[in-house]
């Protein structure tokens, strides 16, 4: 700080005069006897605080006003670093390319506007300050890199050379200003290095001696590659950090995965959202919300250290909007899943979207190991009846019966769960196919019987079995009834003794599911009499197996094993009446249905590769489609006529400039396009843009082959006496107002 006339500044000490008068110049009080003193005391008590404050303000105002008079006359000034590059307004002729970062990270809020608004404001100021004979062009980082996809006419009128986010060198200032005004921030990732290369290419045809590239950006490091944009001897880079060095504390959902959660049933999903804290402060109790089909279904709070990331896991059971009994044309239902954080300065990445296609029905393949001509004697008679009672689709389980011999002709991938009921040990090829299928996520249910040879099974499917099979144990006699030919059990048999009520498979038998008759569901399970069962050998893979049902003898009846992404359930008895009467007990139906749902392979269709903003997306078309419509997340409708639809298998949709869910409708000529929820798709922002970490100035100088003196901020003298004079007038006004107030 300095003064033009420093002598005047010494008179600022006169500010002490009103203070001295206040302290020592008080007039002597006149003494007076007064009867209504009580009211005076009350009045004084009520007004003293305000009056004292007013007196202090008055004293300060007077002291400052007296001090400001000589200070204004002394004409003080300060020096400050100018954020504008050297050369602006210098009047020298130059060829310049103004590179404006319009990538997503420039959408961060700063004051009333965004960083992009600030960049454009400074660029407009630069255009105003260019020398008279200078020529300039404009390059937008994200727009010029990707080009325009059409359907966005606001990006610039055709014919001005700016429809692709970059222009040619021009001396027309009005045109440059118009081009700047037309720029809009994008949701795309930006390649600053690529934009600088394009700027250098434009300057290759420059006619002026001095060539400069002005970069207005947040200088986020992710926009720069390791390669320099031009070789030594290229243009001079003048970089302007529009954040002015202020940090941006950004939090972002950088990944979203939706996977099946079979433990919750066929419609259970597990949603994993990866959230990163790019700020310098720890994040505590950050709200995160899971939305399904626009409805908030779960919430949570996050704690993330600075620079760290965390995975928030939600579990949710998707609801099937289709009424029970209604046939589903596609056999699948679709859901929009979104995870969102509480908003921050960069709101684009606070949400992430996914589309989920949920299979409506579990497809079960029943391998009948003991087929009979009399249906009730068939091994899978009770099982099939339990899985699809009355052949209705209420259970949402679709059954297909086959034999072990025909198993090789079935595509296991078409099924979610396979029941091997009293089947002989499969040959090596089938065993390998089964193992591979389970490894990928298939669910296998094995029940035993007279056809099961333990040793053969152990050797064929040893890895797949939760525990190796041992010998059979008979605890009571069974006999064929003379009346109906059904097997009858003589004796008490063995009963289910204990089971893990918390296991999702056994959820229907938990006490909370008790009926109104006092006969609990657990009792229904215990009523089954098991007359004969296979003992199981110990297994070294204790961690991969769990005994779900124990018999009174302590022997396991139902064991679960894990194999890769799939699960295997082993029932140590039969699913018909040969070895037990479980099949005719009320508990059998819920147990088998729950087993099918629990084992059902990933109920979600394999998700498509995630689409990012700006990337084209192929929309599958059906035969006969002549029209298609795409509704963007903002609600804008994009029409595609027969020329782009007829005879094609897919429609290349490129207008993916917004994050969110794009909905698709298609149909034949003349008809109204019908919604196709199964081909709707989600588009997300590029997570790399969420990291606001800046490139080091030295690294930037190295990349641009900067010479000493380039892009050095200059010092600027700022006169203060104008502001002080205004402050003096304001103080005098305040003093006048305070002095005239009595209280």
């Amino acid at each position, binding site marked *: 700080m300095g003064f033009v006339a420093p002598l005047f500044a010494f008179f600022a000490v006169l500010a002490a005069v009103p203070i001295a008068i206040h302290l020592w110049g008080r*007039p*002597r*009080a006149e*003494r007076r*006897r007064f*009867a209504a003193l009580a009211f*005076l005391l009350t*009045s004084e008590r*009520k007004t003293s605080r305000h009056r004292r404050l007013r007196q202090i303000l008055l004293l300060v105002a007077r002291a400052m006003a007296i001090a400001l008079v000589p200070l204004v006359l002394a004409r003080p000034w300060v020096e400050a670093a100018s954020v504008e590059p050297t050369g602006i307004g210098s009047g020298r002729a130059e060829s310049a390319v103004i590179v404006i970062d319009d990538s997503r990270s420039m959408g961060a809020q700063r004051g009333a506007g965004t960083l992009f608004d600030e960049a454009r404001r400074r660029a407009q100021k630069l255009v105003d300050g260019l020398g008279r004979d200078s020529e300039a062009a404009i390059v937008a980082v994200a727009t010029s890199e990707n080009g325009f996809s059409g359907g966005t006419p606001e990006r610039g009128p055709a014919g001005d050379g700016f429809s692709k986010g970059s222009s040619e060198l021009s001396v027309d200032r009005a045109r440059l200003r118009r081009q700047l005004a037309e720029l809009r921030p994008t949701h795309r990732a930006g390649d600053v290095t690529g934009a600088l290369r394009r700027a250098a290419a434009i300057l290759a045809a420059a006619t002026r001696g001095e060539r400069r590239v002005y970069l207005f950006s947040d200088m986020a490091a992710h926009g720069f590659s390791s390669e320099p944009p031009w070789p030594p001897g290229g243009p001079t880079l003048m970089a302007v950090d529009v954040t002015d060095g202020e940090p941006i504390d950004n939090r972002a959902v950088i990944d979203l995965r939706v996977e099946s959660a079979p433990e919750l049933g066929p419609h259970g999903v597990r949603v994993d959202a990866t959230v990163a804290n790019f700020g310098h402060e720890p994040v505590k109790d950050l709200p995160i919300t899971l939305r399904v089909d626009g409805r908030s279904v779960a919430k949570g709070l996050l704690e993330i250290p600075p620079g760290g990331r965390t995975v928030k896991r939600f579990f949710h059971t998707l609801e099937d909007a289709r009424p029970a009994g209604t046939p589903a044309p596609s056999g699948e239902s679709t859901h929009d899943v979104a995870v969102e954080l509480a908003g921050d300065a960069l709101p684009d990445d606070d949400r992430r979207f996914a589309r989920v296609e949920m299979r409506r029905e579990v497809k079960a393949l029943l391998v009948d190991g003991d087929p009979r001509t009399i249906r009730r004697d068939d091994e899978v008679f009770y099982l099939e009846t339990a899985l699809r009672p009355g052949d209705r689709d209420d259970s949402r389980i679709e059954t297909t019966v086959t034999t072990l011999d025909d198993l090789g002709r079935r595509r296991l991938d078409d099924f979610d769960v396979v029941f091997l009921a009293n089947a002989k040990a499969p040959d090596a090829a089938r065993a390998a196919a089964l193992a591979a299928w389970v490894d990928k996520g298939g669910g296998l249910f094995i029940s035993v019987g007279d056809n099961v040879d333990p040793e053969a099974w152990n050797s064929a499917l040893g890895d797949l079995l939760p525990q190796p099979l041992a010998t059979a144990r008979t605890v009571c006699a069974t006999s064929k009834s003379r009346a109906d030919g059904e097997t009858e059990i003589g004796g008490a048999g063995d009963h289910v003794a204990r089971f893990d009520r918390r296991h999702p498979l056994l959820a229907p038998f938990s006490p909370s599911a008790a009926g109104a008759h006092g006969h609990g569901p657990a009792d229904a399970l215990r009523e089954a009499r098991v007359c004969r069962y296979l003992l199981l050998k110990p297994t070294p893979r204790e961690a991969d197996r769990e005994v779900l049902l124990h018999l009174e003898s302590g022997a396991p009846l139902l064991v679960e094993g894990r194999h890769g992404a799939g699960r295997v359930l082993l029932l140590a008895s039969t699913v018909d009446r040969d070895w037990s009467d479980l099949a005719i007990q009320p508990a059998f139906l819920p147990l088998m249905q729950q087993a099918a749902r629990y084992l059902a392979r990933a109920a979600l269709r394999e998700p498509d590769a995630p689409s990012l903003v700006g990337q084209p997306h192929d929309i599958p078309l059906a035969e006969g489609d002549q029209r298609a419509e795409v509704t963007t997340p903002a609600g804008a409708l994009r029409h595609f006529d027969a020329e782009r639809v007829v005879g094609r298998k897919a429609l290349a949709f490129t207008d993916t400039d917004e994050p969110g869910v794009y909905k698709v409708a298609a149909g034949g000529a003349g008809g109204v396009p019908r919604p196709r929820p199964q081909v709707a798709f989600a588009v997300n922002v590029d997570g790399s843009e969420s990291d606001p970490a800046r490139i080091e100035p030295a690294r930037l100088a190295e990349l641009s082959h900067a010479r000493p003196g380039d892009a050095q901020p200059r010092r600027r003298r700022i006169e203060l006496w104008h502001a002080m004079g205004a402050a003096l007038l304001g103080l005098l006004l305040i003093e006048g107002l305070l002095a005239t107030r*009595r209280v």
Partner: protein
Amino acid sequence: MDEKRTVGKAIPSPILDAAAVASLADARLRARVVVEGALAGLHRSPHHGASVEFAEHKVYSPGDEIRRIDWKAYGKFDKYYVKRYEEETELRGYLVVDCSASMGYRGGAASKLEYATWLAGGLAWLLLRQQDQAGLVAFADGLRAYLPPRGRPSHLGDVLDALGSLEARGTTDLGRALAYVSDVARRRSLIVLMSDLLETGYEAVHLLRGLKARHHDVVLLHVLDHDELTLPFEGPTEFEGLEDDRRLVADPEAVRAQYLEEIGRFVDGCRRSCAEGDVEYHLVDTSRPPSLALLELLQARGRR
């Protein structure tokens, strides 16, 4: 007129100046509440019966005295009518004067106590002039003077002498004073309290409402100095209390607005509380001529 002249000549007092006597010459003090008394006067009695002045007729009902049936009216209307009469009684007035130290404040020509004694003298003169009885109770922290109500003209001199001897000193014990008045005023009476109420506040009004509840006709003359109503002082002032040793250094200009709000709230509170208890309230500003204050009091009572 002779009687009035006799009273005025018999009491040559500086309290009752000639202008005040002249302005009140035709005024009639009429108490609102009818009191008992044996002497005939100008005041109405609630007891209809034997009296000198016919009041009205009423339809005969069983229990009425046969001798009061107006046979002329019976002849006219063929109905029995009974004559009703009004009784004229004598009024007893107790003039209660606060002579505590706060009443000694003098902002203008007279202190509040001097002004109160002028008013009390004037009222005594009027009561005696219309053959009513006037008594005096002077109090501060205790009883200072007591003259029982008398109706003879010479009693005015006693009252005025007692008033002239009062000095403003001591604190205020209004409760004790009014308890004394309640004790001595066994019959229905007119009780006029002259006080600034500065030390007693609303408590005094509640005590007056107690007297009213005992069927006395109660009037409060709230005597305040003009300075107390306007706080006209300027410049830093060290205020000292009159009944205690409290002090306050303040700029009157700075606290004036709040003070006026406080004193105004106090006066309004007293007036409202009196109205609720059917106690007649008059604010008396000592800067005004006492004859005017007295005249307003009498006019107000005449309207009741």
